[in-house]
């Protein structure tokens, strides 16, 4: 019944356009971006909104991504709701600014249309670019479909500008799989989105306050700034859960907070994923459940702050946890696995954990692949009580490392 009498407009659109519409509905005032495949259609759509007068905002067409985030920072510290979007090498080129931004505790939102990192040149999606930013102090969410991407971007402004947080937020979506694929998306009424987000809030402004920001400090003061960021991250968990629930009440879509569980309740085996391939994983769960295997999916929606409490509870109640990573920290494990494993570091348990690295460089992973990988690991665990910790799935084969 929720949203029944609302004027909801449904449009078929790509994930990139869903991002652009979300930025428009959130009434961003300054946009700055540099085109890069597969992000480009976001900045194109926003340019169209601004030039047509549909969105009252200024767009700064900079000469690089480094300057794009720098310009967004300038706009934000002077009081504007500001937005940018990028991918892959553009995101890496911004990396210095990504750190600088969060340490200044300035709210802003960036969409990351994920794409692998070269060489070789390759525009296909994985999570290498996105996961490379996990130590930057940004709140980081990742969508599974275009509707969720739109909802995440709107919520990102609200989270970022909450005084208990005041951190920038990046929203991830895979290039092409979501970014370039059209799906039906419900657009909530703009007035209600603005009421939901509220007026622009930020901890300080270079226009209102005669301040100096970013200048030299002592090591102790610097460390305290970092400690405050960590505290804000921890505080943001409750806020994210609350906002997700509130958004559900107003707009009819709630996703479960930091993670989205699919048939987790009675599961003996828990699969962890992030992003669009979670849809394929869900199909695999269906197929396995039909065979009587009690398996469930925990889709990670927020990488930062990491939902260690939710994940710990799920793993403690499961025999086997299988973490799928679409990127790798070379010489170690997939980054999601590292965080999942750390969540239960001090817990005694009988169960096992497995890390599957797959889909890098844009390699397609189907629901059949998921079934194959999951079944193989469950069978090995049940027959031998052991599993290989790190496995790389490539060319239809699971390889140990």
């Amino acid at each position, binding site marked *: 019944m929720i949203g029944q009498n609302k004027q909801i407009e449904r449009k078929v659109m790509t994930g990139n356009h869903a991002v652009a519409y979300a930025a428009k509905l959130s009434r961003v*005032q*300054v946009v*700055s971006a540099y085109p890069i495949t597969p992000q480009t259609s976001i900045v194109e759509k926003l340019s169209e909104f601004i030039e047509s007068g549909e969105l*009252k*905002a*200024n767009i*700064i*067409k*900079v*000469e*690089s991504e*480094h*300057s*794009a985030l*720098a*310009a*967004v*920072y*300038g*706009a*934000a*510290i*002077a*009081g*504007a709701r*500001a937005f940018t979007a990028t991918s892959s090498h553009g995101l890496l080129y911004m990396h*210095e*600014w990504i750190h*600088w931004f969060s340490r200044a505790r300035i709210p802003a939102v960036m969409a990351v249309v994920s794409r692998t990192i070269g060489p070789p040149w390759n525009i296909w999606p994985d999570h290498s670019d996105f996961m490379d930013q996990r130590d930057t102090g940004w709140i980081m969410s990742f969508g599974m479909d275009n509707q969720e991407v739109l909802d995440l971007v709107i919520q990102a402004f609200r989270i970022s500008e909450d005084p208990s947080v005041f951190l920038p937020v990046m929203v991830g979506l895979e290039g092409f799989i979501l970014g370039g694929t059209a799906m039906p998306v419900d657009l909530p009424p703009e007035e209600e989105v603005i009421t939901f987000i509220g007026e622009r809030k930020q901890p300080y402004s*270079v*226009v209102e*306050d*005669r*301040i*100096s*920001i*970013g*200048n*030299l*400090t*002592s090591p102790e*003061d610097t460390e305290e700034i970092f400690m405050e960021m960590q505290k804000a991250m921890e505080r943001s968990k409750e806020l994210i859960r609350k906002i997700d629930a509130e958004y559900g009440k107003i707009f009819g879509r709630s996703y479960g907070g930091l993670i989205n569980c699919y048939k987790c309740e009675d599961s003996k085996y828990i699969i962890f994923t992030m992003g669009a391939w979670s849809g394929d994983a869900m199909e695999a769960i269906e197929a396995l459940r039909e065979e009587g295997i009690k398996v469930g999916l925990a889709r990670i929606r927020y990488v930062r702050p990491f939902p260690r409490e939710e994940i710990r509870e799920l793993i403690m109640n499961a025999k086997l946890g299988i973490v799928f990573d679409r990127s790798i920290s070379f010489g170690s494990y997939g980054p999601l696995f590292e965080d999942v494993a750390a969540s239960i570091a001090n817990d005694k348990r009988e169960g096992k954990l497995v890390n599957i690295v797959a889909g890098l460089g844009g390699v397609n992973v189907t629901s059949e692949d998921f079934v194959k990988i999951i079944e193989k690991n469950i069978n090995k665990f049940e027959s031998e009580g052991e599993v290989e910790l790190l496995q790389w799935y490539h060319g239809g084969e699971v390889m140990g490392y």
Partner: protein
Amino acid sequence: MVVPASCTSVVVGTSPKTSIGMPVVHVPFASAASVASGIRESLLINNKGDIHVIAWAGDGGTADIGMASLSGAAERNSDIIYIMYDNEAYMNTGIQRSSSTPVGAWTTTTPIKGKLEQKKDVAKIMIAHGVPYVATASIAYPHDFYNKLSRALKIRGFRFIQLHSPCPVGWRFDDSQTVDVAKAAVETGMWILYEYKDGKLEISNPSKYLIEHNSFKPIEEYLKIQGRFSKISEDLLKELYKERERNIEWLKKAV
């Protein structure tokens, strides 16, 4: 005022205080012009266009690592004033050559031969962008600098001032000689004062008088009062003379 990594980042003092009577935004090296653009667009969209935004950067942050963002802001005709204080080397990291270091100058990365390449002419590059206002100035002629800044404040769009600022430590002379060294640069034609607005170039005094009367002092008079040129070779000295000649000829044609 937006300040990228530079000596000024240190000079303004430690957080939370500042020695400058306006809001100061410290930013990573390559981004002064971009951050200033962002602040400006934010002011404009929020109807606060009467507030000026100034980027204040050294020659490294301008001519080298900041060149792309500077060029971007100039090409967009971003409504900001950009002041490059040019002390002709990376002084904050301890006197390494920049593209704005003149031929023959000693730095810690040109330790034996001196710099072999000519000084990059950033003001000329800015003129080539067709921006509304470009000027060169010197700390030895504060009235000229003040007048130029005052004129720049009344113009809209991208404005650029290159301020020649000798560095006692990096150039190897005593602090008390700073103004004399800056003055000698102008009197020997190693630094020429001019102004470019409305598409027209006008040479400022005393450079105008010196060019008209062909009365520049020998370059050696500028070099001998600094340690950084103490070992300059005959060849590189000739290069400096050629460079001065090229600059004068270009200006004469451009006027």
